[in-house]
């Protein structure tokens, strides 16, 4: 059968190995927590992860078998459903200070995870239609609106990390479809400006990085002065941010300001994120070249890392499997991403190609931010490590995306 002949087995194998590694690390984490409670924990984390895995396999199979034309048709509907879910989750009573979850029986579901997929498919559909050109407003404006609505809703939860993922997917996808560098700069630079201003004002107390950035922007605008409108907009946007962001910042409540500065600078949150990062660095660093051996990690048992089975699972991996193990994992992820981009080149469908780039960007972004966070070089963002972290929504989404990739690779000749 042609489906099995052309399917990209390398992707499937990478994903399989990563999942097995993830399961064993989740088991190892459960294993370390007190003898008396081990049974109970294994009973929840490990067996629940198995349950999610089972559902993931099923979702993957479904994603693979349905011709991808169907996804293209349903993309907007899925996007709308996700938006509704995001709105509903905001309207529900808060679980703690954040509103990210639906709880159905023992399972918690995070609609923002599914929105990532819906956004990829919806953008791919818009960009794949012939006559689409991201450099033209009639393509770009719908795309930006489709970006801003979920971005704002997720920010509102508030979940800064997931909101950033949307940016991380959008830019590569637009670039793939021929979006000009100047335009990318136009989209990206306000974000950089904001970060530099807030960071400069509240963390380093040094306004110069933003000043230098503005000078760079001015230089670029001058060099690209043949695109007059774009250049002027670029300067206006960034100078505007410089003028108005401090005012807006002053209107935020102290706890909201703290949330942002803690995100940008985990060290400032010594009781929470900063402490976690220190513990994580000790765990990873003490793992050394060869690691302490599976189930032999000591740091995971000592100070209770609240998220060591979810967002901080890489610290346990780094401790037990060492630099070699971490390299192996990164290699598998690297192969997965490169193979995904190869599918994008091979497939004849513009929709499939664009979606592939979005999926590659999704995986790459999650991997950078998650591992960077555990290694102390990225913000503590609450982003799970695909295939490895404990967590149902992330698992289902990752497997669905793998199913899609296999689908695209097997049907490469379809339009």
């Amino acid at each position, binding site marked *: 059968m042609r489906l099995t002949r052309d399917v990209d087995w390398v992707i499937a194998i990478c994903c399989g190995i990563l999942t097995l590694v993830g399961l064993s690390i989740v088991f190892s984490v459960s294993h370390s927590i*007190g*003898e*008396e*409670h081990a049974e109970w924990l294994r009973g929840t984390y490990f067996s629940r992860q198995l349950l999610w895995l089972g559902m993931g396999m099923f979702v993957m199979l479904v994603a693979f078998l349905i011709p991808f034309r169907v996804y293209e048709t349903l993309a907007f509907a899925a996007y709308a459903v996700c938006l509704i879910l995001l709105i509903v989750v905001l309207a529900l009573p*808060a*679980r*703690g*200070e*954040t509103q990210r979850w639906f709880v159905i029986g023992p399972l918690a579901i995070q609609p923002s995870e599914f929105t990532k997929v819906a956004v990829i498919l919806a953008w791919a559909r818009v960009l794949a239609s012939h006559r689409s050109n991201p450099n033209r407003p009639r393509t770009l404006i719908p795309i930006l609106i489709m970006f801003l609505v979920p971005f704002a809703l997720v920010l509102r939860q508030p979940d800064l990390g997931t909101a950033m993922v949307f940016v991380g997917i959008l830019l*590569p996808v637009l*670039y*793939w479809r021929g979006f000009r560098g100047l335009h990318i700069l136009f989209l990206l630079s306000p974000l950089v400006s904001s970060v530099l201003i807030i960071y400069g004002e509240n963390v380093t107390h040094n306004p110069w990085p933003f000043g230098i950035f503005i000078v760079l922007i001015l230089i670029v605008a001058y060099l690209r002065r043949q695109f007059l409108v774009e250049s002027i907009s670029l300067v206006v946007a960034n100078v505007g941010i410089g003028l108005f962001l401090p005012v807006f910042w002053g209107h935020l409540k102290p706890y909201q300001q703290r949330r942002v500065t803690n995100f940008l600078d985990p*060290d400032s949150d*010594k*009781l*929470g994120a*900063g*402490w976690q990062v*220190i*513990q994580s*660095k*000790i*765990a*990873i*660093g*003490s*793992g*050394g*070249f060869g690691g302490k051996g599976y189930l032999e990690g*000591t*740091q995971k048992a*000592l*100070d209770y890392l609240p998220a060591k089975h979810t967002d901080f699972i890489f610290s346990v991996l*780094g401790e037990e499997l*060492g*630099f070699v193990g*971490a*390299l192996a994992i*990164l290699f598998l992820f*690297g192969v997965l*991403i*490169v193979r995904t*981009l190869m599918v*994008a*080149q091979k497939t004849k469908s513009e929709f499939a190609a664009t979606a592939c*780039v979005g999926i*590659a960007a999704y995986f*790459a972004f999650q*991997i*950078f931010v998650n*591992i*960077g966070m555990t*290694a*102390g*070089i990225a913000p503590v963002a609450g982003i799970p490590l695909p295939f490895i972290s404990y967590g149902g929504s992330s698992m289902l989404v990752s497997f669905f995306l793998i199913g899609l990739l296999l689908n695209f690779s097997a049907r490469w000749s379809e339009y």
Partner: protein
Amino acid sequence: MRTLIVLIAIGFSIIIGRLFTLQVVQHEQYAQFARDNQLERERIQGPRGLVRDRTGRIVVDNALTFQIVMQWRTRDEVQRAVRELSPWIPIDTTRAMARFEAWQKRYGRVAFPLFPDADKFVISFVRENWEQFPHLRVESRLRRRYPDLGIAAHVLGYVGEVSQTDIENSEGVFVAGDFLGKAGLERQYESRLRGTPGQRAMEVTASGTALGEVSELSTAPIPGRDLILAMDYDMQEYLDSLLAEHDNPAAAVVLDVETGGIIAAASRPPYDPNEFAAGVSAGHLNSMLMDRTKPLFNRIGQARYPPASTFKIPVALAILENRIVDPARILAYCDGTHRFGNRIFRCWKEEGHGGMNLMSAIVNSCDVYFYKIGEMTDVDVLAASATAFGFDRKTGIDLPTEVAGNVPTRRYYDKRFGKGRWTQGLMLNNVIGQGEYLGTVLHVARVAAAVANGGWLVQPHFVDRVAGEPPIERTREKVPGLEGNTLTFLRRSMLNVVEDPSGTAAWTRLSWLKVAGKTGTAQNSHGDHHSWYMAYAPADDPKIALAIMVENAGHGGEVSAPIARDFLAEYFRPSRLNPPPPTARVGSGATPADSTRNANPQGGMP
């Protein structure tokens, strides 16, 4: 395509470079950390803000107490420790284990406070024998300390241990064993009172020796903000003691007529908030909940009673404003009864009052006069007057739980009985404050205050300000029509209730202080009548107003009015208002507890 791959390659290189630095270049350093030294952190409670009265005197503070906590992994470990300790320290093994199981169920695997309130002996024993009991640790903590005898208990409220849900919902603000305000001002002002915890990070060797503090990871705790009450604590104590002379459930509130600041307020019977701060036992809590007199029920803002004859003041406003009758007219000859249709309505005075006009009907609290008014007054006209006095809504007091009063309107009756299925007869009960009208002591006290201050409905409040914050805005609204001749008339009537020999509170008259008052008797189908009294003083230059309700205490004047008299006599006692030179009052503003504010809340010896 190539650019994307290059970008991804750069990202991967950064990650790999970073991991190489951590795991290969700096490996020795981190391995050392992991092997020999551990980071231990200790959370330092941020002291909760104090509560002070208007003179700055401390009403609620924090006392330094010590507890012995145990790090444990299994239940057997705890049991063994308890068994090993029992020959040396008196400890009830079964009870300790029962507490442990409750703790485990509540918080999971968190260090267990084996002795929540350890005395010197236990502390020194644990410190001396730390090698034998390495899992035990002495921790200091601040416990909330409230006035004894349940004084102002319902006002101040209490703190209690956080629940597992509180912890989960707080994103790290709370940890097991923390306290938060559960009732009263403690709950209302929780966000201001709560201190911000700090932490002390220590580098500790594997053998348990502290190497030193890691200052980059340590932060100092920040104390919560103090509350400054409008309360006068001496008068608060006195009010509680006056009410304590009767066993009856009661509620009382005394407020500043201009600002609405509450000088004293009480709800009886009281409870001891200190028991909650120490961790109340389930058995005792249950007995309080089952108690028929409901000690935990806050009668100040939550108990609604028929306002009874105190309501004759709002009725009189309706009469004067709507010109229902000429106030000077002798409307009724009271012979003790009034016939409406085939029903007999009785005056409280069986032999009758004789000829009554509005003034004498208020002074004598003659019901027959008001029954006549009831026949002539529209439901909504009276409701408008009651609404003007705020009976239909909450008073806006700064307590977490308050109920509105009740004002029956035409719509209310139509909804309740059906259109046309009720008669004017209901109004005969309403005009004497019985019927469907309901209010708390706060509502009634506001009526007295409004007459006293020239017609302003004030917002009652306990907290005058939060230290270090701008003053809190309080609202004030005009009672329509309560001015000019109407106001003068109502003031004179209330004054005559006390000053006129025939007045219902005449026997509580003070020769040196003019008091304006109104008695009330709320009929109670379940038992003896409730006794109401509202008043303000001095009548010619009003400063404070009060409302007192004593449940099942019989007729209005009998119990409540003398309490008010004694309170006012003490409040306005010349030697209290103008105390002798301050040298005679050294230390009156400070209790020994003053020092605990700066007490070191840390602890944590091995």
